[in-house]
Structures are given as structure tokens and as C-alpha cells.
């Protein structure tokens, strides 16, 4: 009986999961193609673009950091420049003092500093609702600009602090690869985070903290965790950013970029890894695609296009929020579904009609109360002795037969209780 039940439930499960057998080769080829293009790009790119690819990867890490906090945990951070900037200055400080040897140490310390600061901020904002968290992070970002970033011992003053690259990653090309590898590692972490208990817990907290708590989730701990991991990613990104430019300077970490970073994660599509990476890379690279020199426009004379960058960012943000809430990731959904083994054409769930009322109670559970005429009416409170007997019985469907309605017999054909014995002490 047990095996029958198990197999049945398993076959039901298998029927529900799409079989990724057909088109496996095509899928693998496309996925490999994307990977190869990304990996070969730095090798083909000329000097300037190597640096830009590295910058895009750094932005993508920042985007993942924002996505973790905003997309998963539902906390908007308008002060991410604090974590990224602290990571940059810390890393420059550590790497600069030990003259090159401590580069990896510097990256790690930068991540830990970012995590620690974000954790403290997250704990402080624990009792606040999302809007107030946004305000607190905004205020913290401004505060960090006014204090940490002006603290000469940390930031090196207005001139900034030199952040040397180690000899191994001295060329822009190797550094771009380093950034891509770090991005890849964080993508894996993000994937596992979203697919494991922490990701599920964060999504539940984002929907409603009280409901999440009733599911056994420690809301405070997981909100803190989200802040800490997000801060770690931001700190590492800051470190990579500093060593990419060769220095860490206060001017690179202001409120404006913090807002850009939120915008790029939203435009990319929260909770979509691919979308966030693409959106972040776009926001990192787009300023370089706008001609730096004034351009002669037809009928409008010669103008500088410097204003185009923020305007395009703003328009994209408005478009995303109003018309395409899923962002780039949402638009890529068919491709992502196909790569994951699903169908390229629309999902069945969006076409199927709303599930009809009776679907709710078929099978085992409905049979429990099959004949409406013979409702088991409670006669009295169960005898004390009877209640003591219960836990000693082996858990199973026969357990309650003395008290259950005789009409419950059909349920015996159904699988045995698949759960841990709930009442057994």
C-alpha cells in the first residue's frame, strides 16, 4: 500500500514536470553559445572595451546585490553607494598597505566590511516597513558620503586612494576575466539561494512577515541575512570597481549612482538573474555608447548628448514600472523557459481557465467525508483513556477508525499517511 501510494504520487509529480528531452541539443548549444560569447568577448575586445566589460560585470554584481535585497527580501535600498564605497575604500586600504600581495585578502575584507555594515543597518531597520527601510538606507547612504567617505584615513581625502591591481590581473583583459569569474560565482550563489530554503523564506517574508512567521520562518534572522549577503556582494563589487579604475574616489559613490543601481535592477527585472545582469550591463555600458562629442542633429543644430544617458535611464524605468513590470527578464521569459527545458510558446498556466471549484477536494481528502447523510456528529468529549491510547497507536488510517464515520472506509484504499506522525510525542 505504501509503495502504491508513493508511486502514484511520484507519477503525478513526473507528469507535472516538463520533460526536457526534446531539443536538448539545441538548448545546450544555445546555452553554450551564450557562455562562449561572454567568455570570448574580453579576448576579442580592444583595450577600452576590456575595461568596459569588467565594469559591466561589476555593475552586474551590484545589480545582484540590489536584486537580493529588493527582489527577494522586498527591502528597497537607496543607499547602496555606502556599501559599495566602503568596499572600495577598504579594499584600496588593505591592498595598498600590503603592496599587491593582499589583493584577494582585500577583496574578501571589502566583502566582509560591506556585509557587516549592511547587517548593522539591517538590524537597525528590522522593525520598519518597506518604505521606511528605503528612507533609512537613503539616509545611511548620505551619512556615509558625509562621514566615511570624507574620513581621510579611510578614503584618502578628495584625491582618493590608490587601489593597485596585483600583477596577475594587471592587464585589463585578465582583470575582465577575473570580474566575469567573480560574477559567475555570485550567479551560482544567487541560483542556489533562490532554490533553497533561504530564498523561499525571503519570498515568504516579502509577501507578508506574519504569514512567513506562521510557516516557521525566523523573519528577523532572514531579513538580516538578506542585508548581510547583499552587503557582501556590494562590498566585493566595490573592491573590484576600485581596482578596475586603479583608485577609489569619493566622487564615484554618490546618491545618483545609488539610484541608477536600483533602476538597473528594476529595469533588468527583479528576481530574474539574466534580466538583472543584462539590465546592469546595459546601464554600465550605455553612457559609453552615447557620443561624447557634440553631434550635429538634423534641423536642431549641434548639441552635446550628455543628457541622453539619464533621460534614457528614466524612460526605461518608467516603461518598466508602468508597462513591463517584469523588466528585461520578463520579456526574456520565453527564452529562459525554453533554455530551462520548457516550451518556447506561452505557458499552459496563463491560458488555462481559473480552476473550477470542485478541483479543490478530489481524491483522498474528499472521500473522507463522502456521504453527506452520515455526518460524524460529536457525541461527547473523548474519554480520557481513549485520548491516552491514541499516541501509542501506530500512525495510520486505521488509527481513528473507532471514532471516524464507517463511511470513511474507502479511504483505506488510499495511500497511508505520508507524513511524519503528527500526534505522536
Amino acid at each position, binding site marked *: 500500500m505504501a509503495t502504491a501510494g508513493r508511486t502514484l504520487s511520484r507519477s503525478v509529480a513526473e507528469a507535472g514536470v516538463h520533460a526536457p528531452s526534446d531539443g536538448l541539443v539545441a538548448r545546450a548549444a544555445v546555452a553554450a553559445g551564450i557562455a562562449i560569447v561572454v567568455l570570448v568577448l574580453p579576448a576579442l575586445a580592444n583595450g577600452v572595451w576590456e575595461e568596459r566589460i569588467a565594469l559591466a560585470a561589476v555593475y552586474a554584481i551590484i545589480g545582484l546585490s540590489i536584486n537580493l535585497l529588493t527582489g527577494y527580501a522586498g527591502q528597497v535600498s537607496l543607499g547602496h553607494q555606502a556599501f559599495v564605497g566602503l568596499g572600495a575604500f577598504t579594499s584600496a586600504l588593505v591592498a595598498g598597505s600590503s603592496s599587491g600581495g593582499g589583493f584577494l585578502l582585500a577583496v574578501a575584507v571589502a566583502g566582509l566590511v560591506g556585509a557587516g555594515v549592511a547587517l548593522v543597518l539591517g538590524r537597525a531597520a528590522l522593525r520598519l516597513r518597506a518604505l521606511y527601510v528605503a528612507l533609512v538606507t537613503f539616509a545611511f547612504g548620505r551619512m556615509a558620503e558625509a562621514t566615511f567617505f570624507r574620513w581621510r584615513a579611510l578614503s584618502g581625502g578628495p584625491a582618493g586612494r590608490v587601489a593597485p591591481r596585483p600583477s596577475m590581473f594587471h592587464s585589463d583583459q585578465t582583470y575582465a576575466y577575473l570580474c566575469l569569474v567573480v560574477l559567475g560565482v555570485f550567479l551560482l550563489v544567487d541560483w*542556489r539561494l533562490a532554490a533553497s530554503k533561504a530564498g523561499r523564506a525571503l519570498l515568504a517574508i516579502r509577501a507578508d512577515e506574519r504569514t512567513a512567521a506562521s*510557516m516557521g520562518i525566523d523573519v528577523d534572522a532572514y531579513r538580516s541575512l538578506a542585508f548581510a549577503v547583499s552587503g557582501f556582494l556590494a562590498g566585493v563589487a566595490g573592491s573590484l570597481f576600485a581596482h578596475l579604475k586603479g583608485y577609489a574616489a569619493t566622487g564615484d559613490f554618490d546618491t545618483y549612482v545609488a539610484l541608477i543601481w536600483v533602476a538597473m535592477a528594476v529595469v533588468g527585472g527583479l528576481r530574474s538573474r539574466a534580466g538583472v545582469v543584462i539590465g546592469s550591463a546595459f546601464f554600465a555600458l550605455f553612457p559609453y555608447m552615447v557620443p561624447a562629442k557634440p553631434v550635429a542633429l538634423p534641423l536642431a543644430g549641434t548639441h552635446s548628448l550628455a543628457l541622453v544617458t539619464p533621460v534614457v535611464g528614466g524612460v526605461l524605468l518608467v516603461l518598466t514600472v508602468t508597462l513591463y513590470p517584469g523588466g528585461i527578464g520578463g520579456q526574456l521569459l520565453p527564452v529562459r523557459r525554453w533554455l530551462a527545458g520548457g516550451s518556447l510558446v506561452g505557458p499552459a498556466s496563463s491560458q488555462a481557465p481559473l480552476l473550477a471549484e470542485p478541483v479543490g477536494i478530489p*481524491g483522498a481528502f474528499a472521500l473522507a*467525508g463522502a456521504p453527506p447523510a452520515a455526518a460524524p456528529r460529536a457525541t461527547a468529549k473523548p474519554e480520557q483513556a481513549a485520548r491516552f491510547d491514541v499516541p501509542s497507536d501506530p500512525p495510520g488510517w486505521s488509527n481513528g477508525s473507532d471514532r471516524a464515520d464507517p463511511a470513511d472506509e474507502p479511504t483505506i484504499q488510499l495511500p497511508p499517511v505520508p507524513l511524519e506522525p503528527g500526534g*505522536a510525542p
Partner: protein
Amino acid sequence: MTALLEVRELSARFGGVQALDGVDLEVGEWEVVGLVGPSGAGKGTFVDCVTGIEAPEGGTVRFRGQDVTGLPAHRRVAMGMARTWESPRLEPSLTVLDAVMTAQHANVRYGALAGMLGGPTTFAEEDQLRQNAEEILFFLGLSPLVDQPLARLAPTARKLCGVAIALATDPDMLVLEAPLAGLGPEEARRLARSIRFLRDALNLTILVTEEDVSLTPGLCDYVYVLSAGRLLARGTPEDVMAHPYVRSAYLDEEGLGAAS
């Protein structure tokens, strides 16, 4: 052995309103106890205080003989106290299976960091969790819906999904908040029988809130009637329905015809 759940002198006050005023309640092992009262009587507040969602103003909540009054909700879940919500607030795009897997949280053996870093044991355990969740859903007859987003569930299915989520926490006691609300009379009776069946099959102890006292005979072993934050009556469903206060304060509004 004492009662599984023992509530003494529970009081709660919100914004000047005395939502609960010295309520005593006991739920013995393997009982189905009803907490009945009109809308606004304080049933929801009582459930929130018992499960740790709200902090009471006064009184004690003992679970398995242990004082849990100051314990946060997730710790009570770990002790085996699960609840459903009249209107659960979950991510609507979440699938039924994911929702149940979320609720298995407290029973996941790997740590959050191990899961994040892709620890070698986490993959196998994720498979096991998925299988357990599928079995819970199969048990409740929800197998056809495993891949459906919560937003698409019809009311009855949504209620059963809430029960599945509560069962996924591996409870000894289920606190069902208004499980029969919003259902037609026939459906309500069916679900009431299903709840008793659930108790029998899984050895559960159940505390259930309900507005309509006439539905309790097929559902509850013992009933407490709450009105304006105070206990009005207690007893077997039949006794409570015969109680003069209940008849005057409650049943007259509902109509006695539905009572039998």
C-alpha cells in the same frame, strides 16, 4: 497529563479596544475544539495571540505544559503548533508546491548558508523536500494543482492549500482560522468532515474558529463561545447551542432553522 494547549486569562487591547478580556481555553490532546463567535468577537486576535503573531496584554499561553507566551511565532511552529489564515498572504505567483516547500522551513536540516553555497547534501535534501511536499499535496487531493500559482486557486482549493502549508510544518496542533468561512453550506459541511478526518488520520489536535455555531456539531468535540472579547459559554456543541445566552445573543440573528 495536562491539556495540549492551555490558555489562561488572555487579554489583548488594540487602539483602546479591549479585543480579548480574560479568556480561558483548553484544548486536550486529539480534541477538535471550536472557538465560535460573531465577527469582531476577538477570534482572530485570540488565534494571533495563541500562535505568537500578536503579543497579548496579559495572560498566559501554555503549549505542552510549557509557557510559550513570550515565544516568537516561528519558535511555536517548531514546537508543533501550526496555523492557517483566513486570508493567507503569500506571493501569488508562487506555485502550490513551492508554498508547501516554503512551509517545510523549520524541518530543513541544512543551514541557510550551506543552501546558498550549494553544499553537497542540499541537492538531495531539496529533492526529498519536494517529494514530501508532493505527498502532502497528494494526501489532500491537491496533486493536480502542484504546479499552479496560488493566485489561480479557487476558494476551496486555496483553503486546502492553506491546510497543506500548515501540515508541512509537521504540527501536533493545528489552529484553523475560519476554515469554513465563505463556503456554501454543503461545502462547509464537507470540509468540516474532512477536518475531522484529518484529525483522525494524522493524530492532530485542532482548534478551529467559526462564526456559525450551527456548523459545530459535525466538527467540534467542545465549543467555546466568544462575544465581544469575553467567553459567553462553553460546552459540547449541543449544550452550547441550547444555552440561553447563545440562543439570544447569537442564534436569533442566524436563524434557528440553520441550526439543526
